[in-house]
């Protein structure tokens, strides 16, 4: 029982990290209907910027985090302007957007690799000790992870559902043409969406760096987030969170009770099964084409 609860706790904390990443995908997907493969590069970029801020520029943590957020937002928005927006203006197929995004990712990750090298680095900040409740360890870092994840997600929710900009983004995600008839500037919305994505990836990167390590390939974990957002249903924020939680818990349970060696095989089978029975994910909308 103790093991079960421990695995559940770990599963939720892993799910919280996946959520943070999955939401980044879902946000872009909901408005622009493509998977932003560049997200994982942004995440590594965010982590390295904060790392550089602390180690080379001797900033306090909060300043380094801010520094990272600002630079990642610039990168994200710049990518939108240079790599995505020209394609969108041409109404290029989604496939092209994906390839373009993969290109951005490849370039970002390898530039980081070139500059910093492939070495793993410890994020220069002390980690916190866990709390034990009846033998079950609840990491303070995990609570923080949960706290930050849900805090960021809550802020995102407030932003999307309680502000004018958020309303604009949501309207654009439903019907971009009609949104422009409301006076919503599509270019401005794009900038805001990718700025928010930048913030999310930077926060995710810094956090992941603190909890684990900073290295150029750290974005590899986003593949799990991608699976999670497909399981939940692409393009919906609550679905992304749901998918992440399910995947996080599933993974720890499989590791704990079946086999940690074959864990990823189960994640994949789970994806296949979900797709067989819920072609649009658990909470996804049908993407039927209009004739």
């Amino acid at each position: 029982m103790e093991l079960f609860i421990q695995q559940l706790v770990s599963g939720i904390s892993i799910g919280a990290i996946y959520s943070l990443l999955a939401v980044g995908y879902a946000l872009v997907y909901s408005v622009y209907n493509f998977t932003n493969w560049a997200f994982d590069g942004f995440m590594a970029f965010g982590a390295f910027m904060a790392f550089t801020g602390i180690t080379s520029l001797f900033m306090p943590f909060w300043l380094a985090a801010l520094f990272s957020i600002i630079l990642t937002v610039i990168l994200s928005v710049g990518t939108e302007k240079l790599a995505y927006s020209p394609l969108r203006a041409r109404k290029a197929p989604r496939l092209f957007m994906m390839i373009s995004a993969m290109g951005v990712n490849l370039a970002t990750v390898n530039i980081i690799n070139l500059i910093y090298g492939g070495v793993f680095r410890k994020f220069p900040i002390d980690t916190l000790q866990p709390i034990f409740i009846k033998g079950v360890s609840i990491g303070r870092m995990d609570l923080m992870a949960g706290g930050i994840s849900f805090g960021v997600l809550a802020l995102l929710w407030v932003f999307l559902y309680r502000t004018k900009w958020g309303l604009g983004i949501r309207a654009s995600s439903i019907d971009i043409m009609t949104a422009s008839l409301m006076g919503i500037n599509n270019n401005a919305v794009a900038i805001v969406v990718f700025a928010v994505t930048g913030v999310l990836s930077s926060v995710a990167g810094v956090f992941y760096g603190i909890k684990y390590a900073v290295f150029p390939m750290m974005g590899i974990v986003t593949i799990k987030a991608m699976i999670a957002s497909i399981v939940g249903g692409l393009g919906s924020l609550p679905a992304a969170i749901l998918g992440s939680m399910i995947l996080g818990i599933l993974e720890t349970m499989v590791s704990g009770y079946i086999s940690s060696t074959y864990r990823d095989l189960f994640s994949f089978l789970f994806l296949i099964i979900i797709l067989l029975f819920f072609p649009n994910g658990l909470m996804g909308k049908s993407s039927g084409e209009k004739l």
Partner: protein
Amino acid sequence: MGYINTIIILGGINIIAALGVAILTGYTGLFTIGHAGFMALGGYMSAIFVKELGVPFPIALLLGGTFAGLCSFIIGYPAFRSELRGDYFAVATLGFSEATRLLLNNTRSMGESINTAESGIAMLFKPIGPLLVKLGGVFGYMSLPSPTNVFVVVVAVILALFFAHMFVTSQYGKNCIAISQDEVAAQMMGVNLLKTKMIALFVSAFYAGVAGGLMAFYFAYLTPSFFTITKSSDLLAAVVFGGIQSLIGPVITGFILVVFPELLRSFAEWRLIIYGFLFVIVMIFRPQGLLGYVEMNFYFVRIWWNKIFRRGQTSQEG
């Protein structure tokens, strides 16, 4: 000569696998980032046929390819039945290839546990236990025969190109093109989407499988780490740069992507960065790729022939 041969052989193998991706991504419009998985399946299977069963190597290549093709249905059927769109299918292929690699990494321990098992499901697999151990998991499948040489590869590339050409110009291939251009219209005109996509995936995986087999018989050694996502994205790159709906494009770029980094190995660090920027630039300025929509046919060859050689004659006459 060995070095040049190596480049030709590796380039040739890459061409064959890239042709597979061209059929699926270039012609049918299905985005794959998991073809390394099919290469792995084909490679291991052909190796088993040759090493364990003594099947002649050309036949083993075909059997390996067929095996990869059949395995593709595991992902193809659920994915196409649920009408997965681009992003979903891409992630599913990636998942498939990673799952394949995971299984291959563990063949040895699987085999060992089957061999020592006394009861349960493992007993059913008893006959293949020793084979799984032989595959070696992460240690790799060693001491394979190595009949792959330049001649074999060149012949294989020519045949592969010929049959790919036959396929894409056949009624099946044209149905694939129709699907890539307008899936809904194709279906309304009577194209069976599930069947056609499965055929395209089968042929595509077959090609990857044969390429995997050639690779196995070149290195005389197979390890799951040959078949990583990097390999898959290299193949995709060959098709993206080479061109949509073209065979000759991916053939050229498939080869260049092997040769170019060789010649400029000192820029190796920059290579992936350059690929990355090229992806974006190609999508923005020439999304159809280098030779997009250029069909490889004799008409095309004749035009080039004329351009290069005949022009001299006519102008001399004139």
